[in-house]
């Protein structure tokens, strides 16, 4: 008993000392050195972020952690000021920007595609027009051998099989990109379903996360769903080529996704690329963004923490990191977008003074 008591006292004493030590350090927070950079948000670009943040940590010796908690979670974390940066596939609209406690900047990091992936016996190559997309995903076309599908895909043997639509059951930036596209090409979709991170689906099965949808498609004959391209390519699921605004059927690829970003970009980089005008552009493409506060002195962050955060994001848009995008089936930023991203980063301040 005596020994136990002694041990107990010792443990408490150590714990107390440790906590005192911590508060001592916190007092000098404003000039302390950055040890880790923390970000959280979208899962759509997560394979890319995981890859480059790992190599950044290795090269520069500064630990970067990224939590794939979803775009909404990323925005909320930034709002709660518990991360150095957030990440989102959908840019914050004006209303959401106004809801944030301080001015928020968007930095695009790469381009990705959302693909229509399907599971049919024999893995035929399929083409989809916007009308077919609307018909299938709204449950108006119920069978794979429907005359409307056959008319666009002459010569393809289509089975007499029920179409099972698979969608994301969790709120997701991928859903936003897909529904943003659908709302642009279909007025009926826009009126009945609309664009958002979670939707009211008239038909289909919900599965959790990009991996969940990919798994459900590959396990269910006759299924079709939308996923981030990386997940379809990684699992070898066939994807449809989709007719773009210019009338061409385009397969998702690094080139066709890059092509979709040819248009003008506003200074704050908030632009939707879906249903692109580019003749060789894949129509369901999107930028994905890192978001951060313009004024970096919040929540007792040190000047070094702010400087290191900016350095990291600058590196993300540098050629060294951008060349990694294609290895995980994303497309690098076009030069114009890199210039815009750098201009945005130039606006960042600490205590009102420019960081660079």
């Amino acid at each position, binding site marked *: *008993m005596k020994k136990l008591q002694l041990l107990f006292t010792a443990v408490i004493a150590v714990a107390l000392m440790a906590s005192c030590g911590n508060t001592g350090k916190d007092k000098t927070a404003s000039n302390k050195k950055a040890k880790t950079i923390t970000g959280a948000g979208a899962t759509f670009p997560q394979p890319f972020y995981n890859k480059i943040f790992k190599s950044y940590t290795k090269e520069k010796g500064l630990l970067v952690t990224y939590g794939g*908690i*979803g*775009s*909404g*979670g990323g*925005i*909320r974390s930034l709002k709660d000021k518990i991360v150095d940066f957030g990440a989102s596939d959908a840019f914050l609209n004006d209303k959401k920007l106004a809801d944030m406690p301080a001015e928020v900047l968007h930095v695009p990091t790469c381009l990705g595609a959302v693909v229509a992936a399907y599971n049919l016996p024999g893995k035929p190559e399929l083409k989809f027009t916007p009308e077919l997309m609307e018909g299938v995903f709204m449950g108006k076309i119920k069978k794979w051998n429907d005359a409307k599908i056959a008319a666009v895909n002459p010569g393809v043997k289509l089975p007499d099989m*029920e179409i*099972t639509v698979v969608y994301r*059951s*969790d*709120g*997701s930036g991928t859903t936003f990109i897909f529904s943003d596209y659908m709302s642009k090409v279909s007025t009926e979709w826009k009126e009945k*379903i*609309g*664009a*958002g*991170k*979670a*939707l*009211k*689906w*008239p038909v*289909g*099965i*919900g*599965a*959790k996360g990009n991996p*969940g949808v990919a*798994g459900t498609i590959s*396990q*269910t004959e*006759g*299924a079709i769903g939308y996923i981030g391209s990386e997940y379809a390519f990684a699992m070898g699921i066939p994807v449809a080529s989709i007719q773009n605004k210019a009338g061409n059927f385009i397969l998702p690829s690094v080139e066709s996704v890059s092509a979709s970003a040819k248009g003008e970009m506003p200074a704050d980089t908030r632009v939707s690329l879906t249903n692109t005008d580019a003749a060789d552009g894949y129509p369901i493409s999107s930028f994905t963004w890192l978001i951060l506060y313009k004024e970096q002195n919040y929540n007792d962050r040190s000047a070094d923490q702010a400087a290191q955060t900016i350095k990291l994001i600058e590196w993300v848009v540098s050629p060294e990191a951008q060349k990694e995008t294609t290895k995980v089936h994303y497309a690098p930023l076009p030069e114009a977008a890199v210039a815009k991203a750098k201009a945005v980063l130039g606006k960042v301040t600490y205590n009102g003074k420019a960081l660079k």
Partner: protein
Amino acid sequence: MNSEKIFKYLLVSSGVLMVLIALGIVATLFVGSIPSFKEFGFGFLFSTEWDPTEGRETYGALPFIIGTLLTSILALIITFPFAFSISLFLGEYFKDGALPSFLRSVVDLLAGIPSVVYGLWGFYALKPLVAELGLNAQGFGIFTSSVILAIMIIPYASSLGAEVISMVPGSLKEAAYSLGATRFEVVRNVIVPNAGSGIFAGYILALGRAIGETMAVTMLIGNSNNMPTGIFDLGNTMASLIANQFGEAEGLKYTALIEIGLILFVITGIVNYIGKLIMKKLSA
């Protein structure tokens, strides 16, 4: 202070802490769901609309309340014959020996398997089977989830039953035998009336577990937010909806989900309370 007293204070304070935590959970759920309640009122309980699209957001809990009750009650019905047989087998027919102890370990093992593993097994083994049988097109849905839930709750439903059945006084059973009763008659007229409340308590425990189960259900139910039309239709449960949608939820949807959590909490409370009432009646 002597160790006697310290021990007593430790016990009292941990007991009080538990009560405080439970109250704290209710309080946070309650406060969190106020904005949603203000917007939808009691209509939230009866509305079948779950439309998260910006500009026309409306939320209603009915499809998920129905989905939760349907899956868990169906699971209880499916599990009943198995759980009851196991209880009788272990509590009355074969109390000791290698086979019963093996069976007991296997049933206990069922309770220890993480629910995501059940979900995985359901996804790769049970779902294709349901589709093969032609019960519905893809094999997902309320029925499939109920079967998985039924397997998951067998240990909860059976072990308490076995325990109370084995505790039925031997003198009662012997008296019945001496009057010429067969074994089945003893089970029906002596054991079940005597152990009834305990067996029932096991089922309530199992139902509570089925109501709150999340992961395995999410993987199999199809996560459709429309009102289910039958037991082979797709659906969604309250727990599964929260797990799915919480990550990205903001504003009104965020508080609607918290309100769903509160309803789930209340339903679990009501189930337990009804269970206690019936148990009291049975044992009286």
